[in-house]
């Protein structure tokens, strides 16, 4: 594909995706994986899992996963286009809805919409975890790391970065 075509594809795909991201950037991880690995063939499972991991250990919003994917597909321009496409449309929505929202504070439909979207975002995150575990966990050590990180992050107040560090060391030692 030509560079311009690639950039246009990135822009359209990610802008559309951003409007489906109920519950944040990680909620679209399964759909991102489906599009960039299975449909477009821009990267392998392993590369996707690795980029996801890099995005998690970068400070700041998780949306930088999209920046990395854009960079991998079409260089610096791809990174900027992908990021802008992922944030632009929803920022505009946020800007305009943000000012109107207060008026509907006690409307019953607002409560129902808000309550109805909670299980959707949880389900999307769960789906993301399933997809990611399937591409990242090729052996029992990896599977154990996933379970241990989930347990520690759920049950304790430790910074999850410690688990990432430990897991990275196990990987360096060639155990994963």
């Amino acid at each position, binding site marked *: 594909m030509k560079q311009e075509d690639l950039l246009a594809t990135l822009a359209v795909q990610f802008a559309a995706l951003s409007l489906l991201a109920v*519950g944040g950037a990680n909620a679209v991880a399964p759909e991102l994986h489906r599009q960039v690995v299975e449909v477009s063939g821009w990267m392998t499972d392993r590369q996707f899992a690795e980029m996801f991991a*890099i995005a998690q250990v970068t400070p700041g919003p998780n949306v*930088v996963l999209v920046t990395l994917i854009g960079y991998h597909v079409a260089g610096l321009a791809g990174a900027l286009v992908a990021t802008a496409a992922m944030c632009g449309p929803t920022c505009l929505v946020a*800007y305009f809805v943000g000012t109107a929202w207060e008026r509907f504070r006690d409307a019953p439909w607002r409560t129902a919409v808000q309550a109805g979207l909670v299980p959707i975002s949880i389900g999307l995150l769960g*789906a993301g975890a399933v997809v990611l575990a399937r591409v990242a966990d090729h052996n029992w050590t990896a599977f154990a790391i996933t379970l241990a990180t989930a347990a520690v992050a759920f049950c304790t107040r430790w910074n999850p970065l410690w*688990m990432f560090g430990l897991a990275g060391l196990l990987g360096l030692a060639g155990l994963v």
Partner: protein
Amino acid sequence: MSGNGAGTPPGAPRAPSLAALFVAFLTVSLSGFGGVLPWARRMIVEQRRWMTADEFNDAYALCNFLPGPNIVNFSVVFGSRFRGPAGALVALSGLLGPPVAIVLVLGTLYARFGDVAFVRGFLAGIAPAAAGLMIATALKMAEPMLRRGAGPAPVIVVAAIIAIGVMRWPMLWVLLVLVPLSIALAWWWRR
């Protein structure tokens, strides 16, 4: 809503200047490993007292409900409430600028050294941890829902996980079915 007018929360010293907004979101962004929200809350509610806890929860609930990266939406809503479009833009660039720059450096290194054995080993180790963190986040979000007596909500959660995570159906179609269904169930359950 801009300037020092109606948007100023009671008890706040004053509406933040554009520079203060930029610095605040930049700081929050750079401290936010594995989630920016707790840091944003600390800065805005506890340290600078730009919003009360309730105002913060309300603004954040809105950003959860809007599509897109939550904290990115939050920076826009927060910035615009105090300083209009310029405030939104400034808060957004403070939040996104540094992480995008950092991840681009990491991306370049990855493109160059991604196949070196020890880098691959390290990444093979942290990718499963990232999956685990995602499981924990989903569980943490589910916990208050289950404690309140969730009604039909868990069915929606499981349906979404199976349809998108296991069957790998396109998200658009799944959401077109599940979102209206979930809202209708929430409406019916509350009556």
